[in-house]
């Protein structure tokens, strides 16, 4: 055997191995996306039902369909069943591509997907039976359910860190800083918060403020920003505008975010200085938000025609816009003068949808539409994608504006000393508008599910054999 032959055969083997393992990456991306889409449909169907209980409080009166039980199923289902799984699927694919190799430790990734789903299924069942940790938002799951989620995060961390360690590229790309960070932070966060024995009364309130804000900021925000740093330049076919701004955003997010949790409990007996510290760093959050948004907009600048012709990029652009608006809104809300009016009203619910939906969910969709067809070789339907985009964009905008106005009126009613029921009556039309926006969002999710089917399980439309089979 000559040296040349040996090299050639090795090359073929490597190519075959790369092809088969790349299809392993695609299989994982596919499975994570399908799983997350199922949870999106379940959790937002619940959300629509909840919203209609405001105008029609006697709708579906049953313990298993009651507002107090379903609300946590909606929020935890969207957080942990949908968004976590969707962004983990994207994150793993991004890590593998930017590391120049196929994903390392695929069995850990599959085990992670199982654990995410076990947690979401057990969590949904227990919450519907009234088994929970109290109204501690986003950590209502009891510890023996949450432990499966923690296991899923740790298993995902192993796959992602392992892939980066084995990378073929010399440098670790900035998107991977954010993605690795998300898994490390969330492991620490989940352990800190899921251990309940040291938390009593007001102490539990302090941990809850820390937890609920960090779950959004150190998990979803880092995952979504990491996904943008890869997908946006990839789809625009140009490098990110500034690597340094990405690095600045990383460190400022890491240091500022953990300090601001107490702004969820302003005016409570939590120490006043602790609340003030949270407010000061809430203003500091403008630094990473401006750095990130500026970096993304300058990357897009001059390529708007490409955005217009893309199916994926418009989702990312809306996601970036809501990242900027929702995060800046969060800073403004933290100021005491405004918090005294807006806190405890529906305004907050509008804010959480601006960020978790307008930002996080749109980024997940943009990355899935942008990357999944590259992985599977199957395209979504352009009309369904367009309808998905416009229904979701208009729907969430109606949702946020309605609750911002309605919430402000509630707060003003209270401030001028009206009877409590006046605030319920004056918010009613805005709650109805929210239901209309929410229904549009749900219809958009059905179209997304159809597109996920086309991008994954459907037969390849361009395959002449498939067409032949259909005609035969």
């Amino acid at each position, binding site marked *: 055997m000559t040296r040349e032959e040996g090299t050639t055969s090795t090359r073929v083997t490597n190519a075959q191995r790369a092809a088969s393992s790349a299809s392993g990456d695609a299989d994982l991306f596919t499975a994570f996306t399908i799983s997350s889409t199922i949870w999106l449909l379940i959790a937002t169907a619940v959300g629509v039902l909840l919203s209609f209980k*405001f105008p029609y409080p006697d709708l579906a009166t049953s313990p298993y369909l009651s507002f107090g*039980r379903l609300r946590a199923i909606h929020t935890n289902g969207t957080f942990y069943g949908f968004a976590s799984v969707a962004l983990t699927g994207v994150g793993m694919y991004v890590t593998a591509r930017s590391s120049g190799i196929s994903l390392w430790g695929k069995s850990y990734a599959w085990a992670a997907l199982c654990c995410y789903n076990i947690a979401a299924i057990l969590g949904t069942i227990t919450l519907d039976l009234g088994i929970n940790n*109290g109204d501690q938002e986003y950590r209502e799951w009891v510890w023996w359910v949450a432990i499966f989620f923690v296991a899923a995060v740790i298993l995902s961390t192993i796959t992602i860190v392992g892939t980066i360690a084995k990378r073929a590229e010399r440098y670790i790309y900035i998107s991977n800083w954010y993605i690795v960070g998300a898994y490390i932070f969330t492991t620490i966060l989940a352990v800190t918060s899921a251990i309940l024995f040291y938390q009593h009364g007001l102490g539990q309130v302090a941990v809850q403020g820390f937890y609920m804000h960090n779950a959004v900021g150190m998990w979803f925000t880092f995952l979504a920003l990491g996904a943008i740093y890869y997908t946006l330049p990839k789809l625009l076919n140009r490098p990110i505008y500034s690597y340094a701004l990405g690095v600045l955003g990383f460190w400022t997010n890491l240091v500022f975010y953990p300090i601001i949790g107490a702004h969820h409990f302003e005016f*409570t007996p939590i120490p006043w200085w602790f609340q003030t510290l949270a407010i000061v760093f809430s203003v500091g959050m403008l630094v990473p938000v401006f750095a990130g948004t500026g970096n993304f907009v300058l990357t897009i600048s001059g390529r708007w025609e490409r955005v217009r012709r893309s199916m994926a990029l418009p989702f990312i652009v809306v996601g970036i816009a809501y990242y900027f608006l929702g995060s800046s809104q969060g800073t403004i809300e933290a100021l005491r003068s405004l918090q005294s009016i807006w806190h405890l009203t529906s305004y907050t619910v509008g804010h959480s949808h601006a960020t978790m939906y307008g930002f996080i969910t749109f980024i997940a969709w943009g990355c899935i539409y942008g990357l999944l067809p590259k992985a599977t070789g199957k395209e979504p339907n352009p009309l369904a994608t367009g309808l998905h985009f416009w229904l979701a964009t208009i729907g969430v905008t109606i949702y946020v504006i309605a609750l911002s106005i309605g919430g402000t009126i509630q707060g003003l009613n209270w401030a001028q000393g009206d009877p409590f029921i006046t605030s319920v009556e004056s918010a009613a039309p805005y709650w109805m508008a929210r239901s209309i926006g929410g229904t549009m969002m749900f219809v958009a999710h059905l179209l997304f599910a159809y597109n996920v089917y086309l991008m994954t399980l459907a037969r390849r439309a361009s395959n002449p054999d498939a067409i032949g089979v259909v005609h035969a």
Partner: protein
Amino acid sequence: MKGGMNNVVLLVGIPFVIYAILALLMGALPGWVLSQTPPAPGVVPLTAQQARGRATYVAEGCAYCHTQQVRPLKQDLVFGRPSVAGDYAYATPELLGSERNGPDLSNIGSRQPSDVWQYIHLYEPRSLVSSSIMPAYPWFYRVKEHADRGDVVVAVPPGYAPSGRVVIATQEAQDLVAYLKSLKQVPLKGAVKR
């Protein structure tokens, strides 16, 4: 610049250490310190029945719409005096809440001491407050042909009552109402430090 943050050990290790310190300082430590808050004078643990009622309050997610935190703001004084740290010494899991689709309940035991009102309201809130959006909780009640000895009969207003039959409060309803009636802020004597 090979090395630095291009070394995977440092990429994992440095953010891990920074965040672990911040989680300790901003999450675990305040949580532990504030957990040691002693009860305010007069704040006592719940009775067994009240505790069962609180468990039902937790299970049904009442706290998603009803806060238990009176802020030191003019608009909150209708609900009671501003809450203090010692009010929550026995309140685990915490039920401060984040949204007021309904009124604050920190002091509801003093503001609405009638169990007759609470029973009717939980059975069908709109029978007492026409524009209320609170869910009805008929599963806390039994509808029977005749009341037996020892039954807690609920005088549901006409139009909302099942015709010709009686509505009986179950043990769960009695426990929940006992908890609601226990929500009374203790008066604070002397200067309130904050």
